[in-house]
């Protein structure tokens, strides 16, 4: 009976997954198209939410520059558990067309491993929607997020905080 009741939470969560309204790169345009009337992700319960505190998953939209990486990790760190990572675009895998750029991080899957990755530069909204449905399945089955087990994001975030002690004293910061 109790397990059945706990299953209810997974079902409920999977039917209204909220995304942190945050974009790190240009693939966010196709997320925007997904919010629009033609693809309309709200029929599946997806919604962008301004605060990471109420979000279920974060989207790495394409490229992550070195300057934005601490922001991405900090946003992820502020999300409540269970939290999931969804990555789209070739840049989020190995840098894509910016493989030789001086300021783009090319090993995102090692730092913050995504649960679902959608390939393309940029991926079409249909492909992203397919990936999001896969994401819903993961949430419903209450699978553990990959970033909780592996990934070097905790160490990198700690390095950043050491460089800037002001941040860790903030009341809103919980620490990974």
């Amino acid at each position, binding site marked *: 009976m109790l397990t059945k009741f706990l299953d209810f939470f997974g079902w409920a969560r999977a039917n209204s997954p909220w995304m942190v309204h945050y974009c790190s790169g240009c693939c966010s345009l196709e997320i925007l198209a997904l919010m629009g009337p033609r693809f309309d992700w709200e029929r599946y319960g997806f919604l962008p939410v301004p605060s990471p505190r109420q979000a279920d998953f974060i989207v790495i939209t394409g490229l992550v*520059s*070195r*300057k934005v990486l601490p922001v991405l990790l900090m946003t992820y760190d502020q999300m409540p558990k269970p939290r999931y990572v969804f990555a789209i675009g070739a840049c989020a895998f190995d840098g894509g067309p910016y*493989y*030789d*750029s*001086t*300021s783009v991080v090319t090993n995102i899957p090692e730092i913050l491993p995504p649960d679902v990755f959608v390939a393309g530069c940029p991926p079409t909204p249909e492909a992203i929607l397919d990936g999001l449905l896969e994401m819903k399945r993961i949430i419903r089955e209450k699978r553990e997020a990959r970033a909780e087990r592996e990934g070097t994001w905790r160490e990198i975030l700690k390095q950043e905080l050491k460089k800037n002690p002001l941040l860790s004293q903030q009341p809103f910061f919980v620490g990974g």
Partner: protein
Amino acid sequence: MGFESFAKKMETYFGVKAEEYPQNRVAKTYMFKIQPHHIREVAKLLKEEGFNFFHTLSPVDYSPKGRGLELNYFFESIEERIWVLIRTEVPLENPEIDSIHDIFPALEACEREEWEKFGINFKGHPRLKPLLLDDTLQGKWVQRKSYIPEPHRK
């Protein structure tokens, strides 16, 4: 006021003749090759003579060709529809030039960007501090030819 008087003044004050610059696809352009220490006077003259619209500051690193850093300033006269290219060259070892951000405020951000990427020291600029690049790249002057991105290093 106007290009004619500007060209005449450039010749009398600095001894620089106007050259045609046909490489600009957009409009009729004249090029002036000046000494770097004249830049402030030239900028004041430009503003007086109606070349009030700043377009681009484009440094080119010619050090593999045995030359220094070339600085290209593109200005336009809105009334006359004539462009002017001010070209000067500074040595790569000690790239220094006077800042003209107070004459053309549009240049403040541009000079800041080129300081960050080329290491050109714009004397008198109020905030030469990091703008676009992260702090691992500061001081490496990434746009210079001597900096080679990691995947291309042998």
